[in-house]
């Protein structure tokens, strides 16, 4: 007869929640979660009761009411009779515009400065060090204000372009640099201009096709085709030829001084320029440091190996070092993009109508709906920041080291 005794089944007893290390941490986590929920419920309830006691009802009706004010820079139709919601959208588009422009230029600036900071040329590397240290150690608001102040002080007002004794003149007869903004000629689309545009798009595709072909040829046969001038030729020549074939259908609307301001052409407002430059140079300094860190993270052996294979320094940087450095650069770059977007809310300092200035500024002031406006603002910035993170994370996943 065999005696088989089962090992004692550990039956669960309540006391094990405290005494057994396997369960103890769950107990405490559950308690902490409960306390947190109760605390937030209490705070929320408190907020609501006190708001209603103070007679402050949360309502979003004001969004449909006419805004009543005008906005100087708008990407969509808007006038003072449009609703507050539309004013907010105008602001959102302005925020996105300046954030996009600043992200692009800050990246370009940052990469150049970061690479040059590692240059063996003493002067260049020290100049870049000075740029980085000066710009990232002074608050961005001060940069925005100082750049704007310099701009309005140095550039001439439209008045100075007037009359025979004009002290300022237009560059090339068609670009006006004033302290209210830069006026550039706008294209006027005549009949047949569609053909030119189509040709232009086709040649754009052509450039990519050519470069792809050249790359494949290089990989398969080792023959290196010239890249630079054929790309340029494909880019420009067909469009220019088509332009003349169609009888020059695209004209230019050159800005002209009429009354108080320049009329015609495209105006790039002074506040936009100041904000764009300030955000770019400020964040560019941070990105430069990210880039430098990324490059230094690539072991020196890679450079030396590439050099031993006979690659020239430019190609070593572009083909060997930067692709590997990107893995290190991208994650901090994401937070710099988020910073640019959030810092663009300082726009009101120079009178740029971003969403903080329209919805969180004038609309908030005129309607007095502080809580509603601020909640909407928070939601907007949260959404936009999470979207940027999401997109950049997809990109990050595509460039990060693939481990198999």
């Amino acid at each position, binding site marked *: 007869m065999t005696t088989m005794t089962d090992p004692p089944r550990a039956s669960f007893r309540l006391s094990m929640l405290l005494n057994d290390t396997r369960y103890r941490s769950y107990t405490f986590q559950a308690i902490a979660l409960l306390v947190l929920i109760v605390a937030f419920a209490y705070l929320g309830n408190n*907020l609501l009761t006190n708001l209603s006691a103070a007679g*402050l009802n949360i309502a979003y009706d004001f969004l449909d009411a006419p805004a*009543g004010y005008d906005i100087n820079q708008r990407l969509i139709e808007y006038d003072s009779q449009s609703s507050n919601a539309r004013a907010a959208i105008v602001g959102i588009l302005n925020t996105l515009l300046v954030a996009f422009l600043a992200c692009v230029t800050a990246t370009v600036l940052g990469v150049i400065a970061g690479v040059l900071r590692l240059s063996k040329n003493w002067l260049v590397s020290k100049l870049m060090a000075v740029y980085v240290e000066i710009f990232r150690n002074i608050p961005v608001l001060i940069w925005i204000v100082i750049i704007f102040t310099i701009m309005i002080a140095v550039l001439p007002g439209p008045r100075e372009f007037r009359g025979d004794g004009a002290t300022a003149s237009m560059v090339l007869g068609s670009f006006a640099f004033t302290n209210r903004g830069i006026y550039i000629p706008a294209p006027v689309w005549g009949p047949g201009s569609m053909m030119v545009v189509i040709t232009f798009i086709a040649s754009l595709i052509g450039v990519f096709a050519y470069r792809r072909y050249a790359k494949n040829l290089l990989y398969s046969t080792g023959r290196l085709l010239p890249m630079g001038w054929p790309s340029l030729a494909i880019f420009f020549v067909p469009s220019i030829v088509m332009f003349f074939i169609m009888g020059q259908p695209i004209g230019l609307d050159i800005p002209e001084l009429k009354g*108080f301001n320049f009329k015609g052409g495209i105006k790039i407002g002074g506040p936009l320029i100041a904000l764009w430059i300030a955000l770019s140079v400020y964040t560019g300094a941070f990105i430069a440091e990210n880039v430098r860190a990324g490059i230094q993270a690539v072991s020196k052996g890679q450079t030396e190996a590439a050099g031993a294979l006979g690659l020239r320094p430019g190609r070593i940087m572009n083909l060997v070092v930067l692709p590997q450095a990107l893995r290190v650069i991208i994650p901090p770059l994401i937070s710099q993009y988020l910073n640019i977007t959030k810092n663009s809310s300082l726009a009101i300092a120079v009178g740029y109508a971003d969403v903080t200035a329209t919805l969180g500024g004038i609309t908030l002031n005129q309607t007095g709906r502080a809580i509603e406006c601020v909640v909407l603002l928070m939601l907007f910035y949260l959404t936009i920041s999470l979207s940027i993170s999401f997109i950049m994370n997809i990109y990050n996943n595509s460039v990060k080291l693939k481990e198999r």
Partner: protein
Amino acid sequence: MKKSVIFGALTVAGLAAGAAAAGTLDDVKARGTMNCGVTTGLAGFAAPDANGVWEGFDVSVCRAVAAAVLGDATAVEFVPTTGKTRFTALASGEIDMLARNTTWTFSRDVDLKFTFVGVNYYDGQGFMVPSELGVSSAKELDGATVCIQTGTTTELNLADFFRANNISYEPVPIETNAEAQQQYLAGACDVYTTDASGLAATRATFEDPTAHVLLPEIISKEPLGPLVRHGDNEWGDVVRWTLNALITAEELGVTSANLAEMSGGSANPEINRLLGTEGSLGEMLGLDAEWAKRAIAAGGNYGEVFEKNIGENTPIALSRGLNAQWTDGGLLYSPPFR
């Protein structure tokens, strides 16, 4: 407990809208100082002098209230507020009263839940342009770039004016008066618009004030006055009747010079009631009998305050106009002290 929790919760939301504390009058007395919201600096209305002492037309109202309540015209903490922060500062209880050329409007009174206790300056929105432009009317401003101080009723008036006259303009919203001034002087805008009194005050600080003209059009009604929170009527009464005391004092000829003589008793019973030698008006207000006397002693009656800070002999050079006593054809008309 409940109150501190809601303040915490609101701070988390980035806001400072709080519940109105009951009994501001008692709070102020207990604290020994009054917190008064003023502008961040507008010559003649509220600006610190070379020694850092705040002075100006709006400041005088704060000082008169402090003198009436606390017996000391200097027991005022001045809190500079911008057009944007002023209402939250008042609603949250950070300041006890706001005297910051704030226009009395329906929505501010009703929707934002404030009590305007009176009008200390009848103003209107005007335009300032450099004289070299040769503009003589606001209707000639088609296409002009206009600097506006943001967070005010000015933006709405401006939009309405240009729409009504069917002319175009380009608005440049500016946060503070100082920045607007800088942009205007640099020629980044052709026109600067805000309340006419503010324009006069700003122009007075220019290097060459004569190179700038105020256009004749006044495009809005801007009754500016001190305000307090809704729901605290005792405190509202104190501020309202302090302002009325200054106005009535001018009407009755009580000045800081003859105050001592007048308070010895006079033939006019209203003067006696005002200065506390007759009746018990101060007691009804929760103050002592000499409250109005101290308020007047702080900076003189309304007329004296006006002349000293923004009158014709000051750089601001504003004439009394609408702000004359009703007996002189103006709009100042205090209810009787009775």
